[in-house]
């Protein structure tokens, strides 16, 4: 199952990664290799086998509706030099 350059571009858009042309080539090749190797699982008969999305048998892990202290403003924006008046500044969206 070959992963084409178009596939790579489409996936890079979903993953929000800017890729250089050589990177796209390399990834197309490498992803194809890995998926080709992984294809061995397609041959396995899994009819009636449920997927394991959670390794544990836990259910209903909940917490009470109680308010806990929030972070200080300094802690919130301390790792973002671009913050303005406590809000996170970002370039235009549209």
């Amino acid at each position, binding site marked *: 199952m070959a992963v084409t350059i178009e596939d790579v571009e489409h996936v890079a858009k979903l993953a929000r990664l800017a890729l250089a042309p050589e990177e796209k080539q390399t990834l197309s090749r490498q992803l194809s290799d890995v998926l080709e190797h992984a294809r061995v699982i397609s041959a396995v008969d899994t009819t009636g086998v449920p997927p394991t999305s959670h390794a544990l048998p836990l259910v209903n892990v*909940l917490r009470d509706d109680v*308010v806990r202290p929030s972070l200080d403003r300094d802690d919130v924006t301390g790792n973002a030099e671009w913050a303005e008046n406590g809000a996170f500044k970002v370039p235009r969206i549209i």
Partner: protein
Amino acid sequence: MEYETVIGLEIHAELATMSKMFCGCSTYFGGEPNSRTCPVCLGHPGSLPVANAKAIADSILLALALDCDITPRSIFHRKNYFYPDMPKNFQISQYDVPLSSGGQIVIDVGDRTRTVRITRVHLEEDTGKSIHVGESGRIHGAEHSLEDFNRAGIPMVEVVTEPDLRSPEEARVFMQLLRSTLEYLEISDCKMEEGSLRCDANISISADGVLGTKVEIKNMNSFRALFRALTYEEERQRFLLRDGGTVIQETRHWDEGAGKTHPLRTKEEAFDYRYFPEPDLVPLEPDPRFVAELKSGLPELPRARMMRLVEQYGLPEDISVMLTGEKALADYFERAVETGQDPVELAKWIAGDLVAMLKESVVPIRHCPLEPRGLGELVALVAQNIISGKMAKDVLREAYETGKGPKEIVDSKGLAQIDDAGRIESVVAEVIAENPEAAEDLRNGKEQALKFLMGQVMKKTRGQANPEMASEMMKKSLR
């Protein structure tokens, strides 16, 4: 060509829990940007979600009120997409195994009823808020945006209907009923203007029974906007089809100012959400006994109450709908009924004058300065002919504004209606004498003159003359 409008709604309501869905930050509205955040709702590396038990209970309650089946084992899913108001760039939501499904609710539109099927009710977390900085403050043409995550992580319940609605009016009625239901259950503030109740719609036109292409409409921020947007879109699509065009499947944005919908053009394309089960949360298996308890604890719901009030008290349906639109209002009415006064009269006073005054002074019914028994007192005064209906309006206003009881006001101001036939007779005679032209007009059959002459009688008696008596006497004298 038989055209039919087909509408389905997708509603999001913020739940009024104290803390957020997956962390303990307060959900209180407002505050400085990012003053109610923590590593979890900011998506810091290594943070993990823990689900709010009350949010789950509230969602189940809503699902039960909408007659849904509660899924024995449901799970959370991740909905993956990038947007600056998303702390993790995935939203924890539910996908193919939601909390509940398969319900229905009946709405009354004019003299018809419509059963609207509910596809599902599920739980998810809200996003943060973007403040767009630029000339208009709107997203188009903004220079940059500022992100505030106070709202991020607030629990939201999503209700999806089947495309069972057949007109913009039905959509509006449905939303109002849903809002009332949320209010009755006391699980949401449901303020569309504040954003705690949001609605998107899917609308299509079927031609001769063949389903049309559906268009998604977003950005309707009030019931009125919902109605206007769907009315516009219905017309747009019908004209398009009539003129031989095709409706494109797209998302359109309602522009309140322009009164139109436009296609939404963003760079955020390819909505491939890559849903997969949320590995950081474990499945929900609501205890059937707990669910049964919630079910038996459901309050009387809006429509049921509306019908009971009609049946039990003989209220006109439209007034009953009005009163039961808000639980507290209906509660007020039923407490007023305990005074023993005529329920229909009480209802009319509440639905008319009282609600108008509350709206004018922006006061919620639970803070109404006039107690239900005070209203009963007022109605009693009218029923006993102590004051006229018109006078009662003034007394009501004074009672509302001063907090004094109606009887006290009537007594202290000597407002009691004049029923003394002798007195009225003499006033009528006075008025006739002072207004010969009008009197002559009335003798000649001009009904307008009666109005004028009655006005003079009321002036002389400061509105306290028994209007029926005065009117009879006036007519008798001049025939």
